[in-house]
């Protein structure tokens, strides 16, 4: 892999949505991969609000290029563009998120945590991703609480990496009032949500099945959960209310 620090003419900056030439070493740098521009915009904003540096790319191939894992030797990385986490959509034309995951885990970057996002709640898919070494699996549409929880879990000081992977998927519908919103966020419009007839728990498909899956996995992993005790209690309490 050519890494002589010389900027290759063939790498055009406009191929990447966002380029960060200088990086504060304290900030978490996330590489977001999604073929949908709408989703790229949303995930970029979600990550920025949680104080991450974000680079978005539209395909697995471009992600590998950015990491410097592409087979073509002409692509080089800037020094200092260390990626701390990769978050990728599952369904993408060309290289799927799963294939990207396998490539990363089979490379010199296997330590980089990879998070998979998918709009389909397919247990087999989740299982195979976790088996392949995915750090986490998020159901789309991704919410701010998902990203906050992910970041807190992955990059907080008291995180222990010795245990096996813990499922932190969004299990239950959370109303917007549950979020400890940052003061800079503009307040939601004052609507009385209780008047809506669509009182189904969540707009995401298969929340109940994800609930079931999480029950079995987190029961075995409860001791190794690094999250704070009151959030765990809240989750258990909410789960019992829902069932």
């Amino acid at each position, binding site marked *: 892999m050519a890494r002589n620090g010389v900027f290759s003419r063939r790498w055009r900056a406009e191929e990447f949505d966002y380029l960060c030439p200088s990086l504060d070493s304290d900030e978490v740098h996330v590489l977001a991969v999604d073929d949908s521009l709408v*989703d790229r*915009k949303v995930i970029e*904003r979600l990550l920025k*609000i949680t104080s991450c540096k974000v680079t978005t790319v539209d395909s697995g191939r471009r992600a590998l290029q950015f990491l410097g894992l592409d087979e073509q030797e002409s692509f080089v990385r800037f020094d200092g563009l260390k990626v701390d986490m990769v978050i990728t959509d599952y369904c993408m034309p060309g290289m799927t998120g799963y294939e990207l995951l396998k490539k990363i885990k089979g490379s010199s970057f296997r330590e980089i945590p990879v998070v998979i996002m998918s709009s389909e709640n397919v247990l087999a898919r989740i299982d195979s991703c976790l088996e392949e070494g995915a750090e986490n699996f998020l159901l789309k549409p991704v919410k701010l609480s998902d990203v906050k929880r992910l970041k807190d879990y992955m990059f907080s000081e008291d995180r222990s990496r010795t245990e096996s992977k813990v499922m932190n998927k969004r299990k239950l519908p959370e109303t917007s009032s549950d979020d400890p919103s940052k003061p800079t*966020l*503009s307040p939601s419009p004052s*609507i009385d949500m209780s008047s809506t007839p669509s009182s189904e728990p969540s707009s995401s498909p298969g929340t109940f099945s994800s609930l079931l899956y999480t029950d079995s996995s987190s029961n075995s992993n409860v001791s190794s959960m690094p999250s704070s005790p009151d959030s765990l209690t809240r989750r258990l309490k909410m789960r019992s209310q829902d069932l």
Partner: protein
Amino acid sequence: MLNNAAHYSKSGQHARRRLTQYGYPQVAAKTGLPLWMLGLGVERLRADMNRLLALLFHQGVLDEQYLQLQQLQDESSPNFVSEVVNIYFQESEKLLRNLRFLLEFSDYKKMGVHLNQFIGSSSSIGAKRVRNVCVAFRVASEQNNRLGCLRALELLEHEYCYLKNKLHELFQFRATDRAAKTASSYSQVSSPALKQKPKWRKLG
């Protein structure tokens, strides 16, 4: 109420017309105005905007993901929602054109691929009804059901148009609200025309 969304533009023109409807003729003409009158108009405007939003939730046109997008909007990214939604509109119209084309040639497999995309982006912005029609459409395409696909496509186009019109209305409310805020701060700062003793109130 402006009802022809097709002619909406991003210019302040419509916002100023709206201002007139809410009783801001002087503000629209950029002269001073008693603050108590400005205050009343803003409240009514916001009530109308919230009523429209509540209606769209009630109808199931939007779901909580749309609120999530609004939460992501702040001073550092004040147009986030409209930017994302406009990208969604562009992508959706391309998808709709492709779907119609593919249906002509009964390419159900490619239709499924497009529908997956449409489902994904619709759920990302909280367009619940559009998303649900796409899901039904996908079922019909998996069954190679031509008539079902035709019906679903018509319904999808109808739902999409409705969503687009309503979201444009919402954005116009926001633009009017902002113009009123700007105008009120303008009249606070430079108000040579104000003869009466002004009771300066900061507008929410």
